[in-house]
C-alpha cells in the first residue's frame, strides 16, 4: 500500500491540516519504496549514535550521502525512526543549503559564486552554463546528465573563476570554455 500526501511544508503539516488551505504539490511518502540496503546502513548509523535527536543534521548528511538526495519519504522515515515531527525534519532540511530534496544528475556542475570568482566574472560563466545546459540553478537537465549548482568559495581563489564538475576543478574558466567542458562529459556517455 502506498499513499500520497501534500508537500511537507511547515504550514501544511502544522497549520494546514485542512486540505483546502494546503499549498504545493502531492508527493510520495511511501517509505517502503526506499532501497532496503541503504536503509539498513542508515539504521545502523542511527543506532550507533548516543544522542539521536541532537544529531539530526549528521543523520541527514548520512542519508544524503547514501541516497544522493533527501526525498520526502526518506525524511518521513527518519522522522519516525528518531521520533521527531516530520515538519521539523523538513524545516531543518530546507534551512541548510547543503541538503537537497531533488534528485541529482549524473554529474554535478558547480560554479563558484564566491566573491573572488564573482569579481573575476563568474556570473557571466554562470549565465553561459545556464544557457548551454538549458537549465536553472539547482535543477537537473532533462537528460538527467547534469545538475547545475552555485557554490560559495571552494578555496581555490587563485584559480578564479572556478567551475567544478563533480570533484574535478577547472580554473581560470572563460565564457568560451564552457561548451568545451560540457562536451567532454556529454561525449563520455
Amino acid at each position, binding site marked *: 500500500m502506498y499513499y500520497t500526501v501534500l508537500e511537507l511544508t511547515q504550514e501544511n503539516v502544522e497549520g494546514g491540516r485542512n486540505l483546502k488551505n494546503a499549498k504545493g504539490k502531492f508527493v510520495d511518502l511511501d517509505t517502503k519504496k526506499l532501497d532496503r540496503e541503504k536503509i539498513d546502513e542508515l539504521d545502523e548509523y542511527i543506532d550507533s549514535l548516543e544522542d539521536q535527536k541532537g544529531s*539530526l543534521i549528521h543523520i541527514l548528511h548520512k542519508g544524503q550521502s547514501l541516497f544522493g538526495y533527501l526525498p520526502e519519504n526518506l525524511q518521513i522515515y527518519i522522522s519516525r525512526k528518531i521520533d521527531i515531527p516530520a515538519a521539523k525534519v523538513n524545516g*531543518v532540511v530546507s*534551512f541548510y543549503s547543503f*541538503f537537497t530534496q531533488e534528485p541529482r544528475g549524473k554529474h554535478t556542475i558547480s560554479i563558484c559564486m564566491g566573491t573572488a570568482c564573482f*569579481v573575476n566574472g563568474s556570473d557571466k560563466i554562470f549565465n553561459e552554463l545556464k544557457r548551454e545546459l538549458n537549465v536553472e540553478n539547482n535543477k537537473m537537465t532533462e537528460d538527467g546528465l547534469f545538475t547545475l549548482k552555485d557554490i560559495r*568559495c571552494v578555496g581555490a581563489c587563485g584559480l578564479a573563476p572556478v567551475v567544478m564538475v563533480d570533484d574535478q*576543478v577547472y580554473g581560470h574558466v572563460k565564457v568560451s570554455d564552457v561548451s568545451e567542458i560540457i562536451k567532454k562529459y556529454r561525449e563520455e556517455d
Partner: protein
Amino acid sequence: MSNYKAHIMICSGTSCKASESENILEAFREEIEGHDGKFKVLKTGCFGFCAQGPIVKIYPDNVYYVKVKPEDVKEIVEKHLIKGEKVERLLYEDPKDRVKLVVHDEMEFYQKQYRIALRNCGFINPENIEEYIAFSGYEALGKVLTEMTPQDVVKIVKDSGLRGRGGGGFLTGLKWELAMKSPGTEKYIICNADEGDPGAFMDRSILEGDPHSVLEAMAIGGYAIGANKGIFYIRAEYPLAIERLKIAIRQAENEGLLGKNIFNSGFDFTIEIKLGAGAFVCGEETALIHSMEGLRGEPTKKPPFPSESGYKGMPTSVNNVETYANICPIILKGSKWFSSIGAENSKGTKVFALAGKVNNVGLVEVPMGTTLREIIFEIGGGITDGKKFKAVQTGGPSGGVITEADLDTPIDYESLKAIGSMMGSGGMIVMDEDNDMVEIAKFYLDFTQDESCGKCTPCRIGTKRMYEILERLTNLEGDMDDLQKLKDLGNMIKDTALCGLGQTAPNPVLSTMRYFPQEYEAYAKREKTKSYRIDAEKCIGCTACIRVCPVNCITGKVKEAHIIDESACIACGACFTACKFGAIIKP
C-alpha cells in the same frame, strides 16, 4: 627528520590540490622508488602563495619551486635530488627585476609577513603528530596542565591583548574569564570553523595545514574555563579539513594528549566534530549552538550570552579557529611578547585571504597596523594585468569598500570601522577599474538576503526590498528616488535587525553608495548601457570576436568594422577578452 637526505614537501591545500598536486605527489613517489629511502615525500598544508601553485619545496636546501606540473617531477628528481643542481626554470621569478629567487624569504610576498597563526603551515606534515611535536607541539598544553592554574591561563591570554579573529574582536581572555566564572555542572568549549564569508579560506587553511595547533589550544581553553568537552563546528563543504581533523584527534588520543588524565594532571578532555550544512548565519554563535543541537540555525537574542547559557544551556565559550591558533605561542612566549607585536588596541597579527584582481592571490599574515597599500601592492604584487586599483572590500558581506584615498589606513579593528568597513574574519577582495560597484553591492546583498534565516522582519523583508531596488536600478528601470529609499532602508535594517547578519547586511550597499555615488546615479538616470559595442575606428575586422560570441550577435565581413546587435548581446564579455585591438567598448 635527519635520516633522510632530502624532503620533498608538496602543498596539499585546496587550491594546489585543485591544480593537480595529488598527481605531482604520485609522480614523486614513483620517481624516488629505488633510491633506498634517501628521499621522502610529504604533504603539507597551504604555503599561502596560491597564485604560484602547485608549490613544491625541497628540504634541507630550502628551494622553492612554483607552478610545478606532474611532468616536471622527473627533472626535479634527476637534476636536483641526484645531481644537486637547481631546476632554474621552475624557480620563482621576481616580477620587478626578473631575477630568479630560490628561497621563499627573498620573495616580496613573504618579506612583510609575520607568521604566528600560520607558523607551521607548509612546514610540517599535518597528518603526522610527531612533526607537530617536533615544532614545540603540545608543550604549551603540558606547561598549562603542570604549572598553571586556570586563572593563570586566563590572565596571560587577557594580558596578551588577543582579540577574537572571527569578526567581533572581543577580548579572548575576557570571554574565557566570563565562562570560567559562570556556574555550571558541565561546560563546553567550541571551535567555530563555519567560515561563511564567500571568498575567504583562512580558517580552512589553518585546519588543513596545522590541525593540532587548534586542538591543543582548545584543550588549554577547556582547562581555563573548566570544560571537559570540546566541540568543533565545521562546514561540511570542507572535506579535506574534516579528514585532517579526524586524523589529528585520533593521533592525539593515541598519544594520551586528549582523553583522560592528560599529563597526569587529572584533567580530562575530549573533542567531538559536528558538521554544519551550509548556512552563513550558523557562524553566528547563538545560531551555531542551535545548529549543533540539531535544529535550524536561527540566532537568539543576547543576553544571555553563551558564556552564561550556551550549548545545552551550559556555560560555553565559542572561539574562532585563528584565535585558537594564536594561543600556544602566547602560552610559550608570554603575553609581553605578543602584545609587543601589532598596533595600539589590536595586538598580534591577522591572516587575510587576499583574492580578486591582485597578482599574488593567497594567504597572508601580517602584524596589525600594516597598511592596506603594503598588503595589496607589496605583498600582493599589485593589480592583475596592470589595471588600475579601484577598491578593496574587507569584512566580506558584512563589510564595506575602501578606496585609494584610504589605502594608507593601518589595519586594526577601530581604524577599519572608522572608514566604513570592518576587520571581519579576513576576507580581502581587491577590485579593479573594470568592476561595477553597483553589481558588487548587489552580489553581496543577494548573498545576505539568501542567507537570512527569516526570523525577524527587518532582515527578511528589508534586504529583499533593497535587492529589488538594486535589480530595478541595474535593469535601468529605477530613478533617483530609489537611491534615497535604499539609504533609508539600509539604515533602518542596521538599527532593527536581531543578529549580526541583518545588522551588517546593508553595509556593502551603503559604503559603495558613499564612495561611488556617480555609479549609482548613472543607473538611476539610466545613462548606463547594458550591452557591449564596437568602436568602428579601432576595429580591423579580424573576426576574433565573432568566433567567441556565444549568442552569435556579432556580424561583419573580414577586414571591415564589425557590429554587435545590442538587443541580443548578453554582456558576457567574451568579445572584450578576445579583441586584441581594444575595439570593444564595455558598457
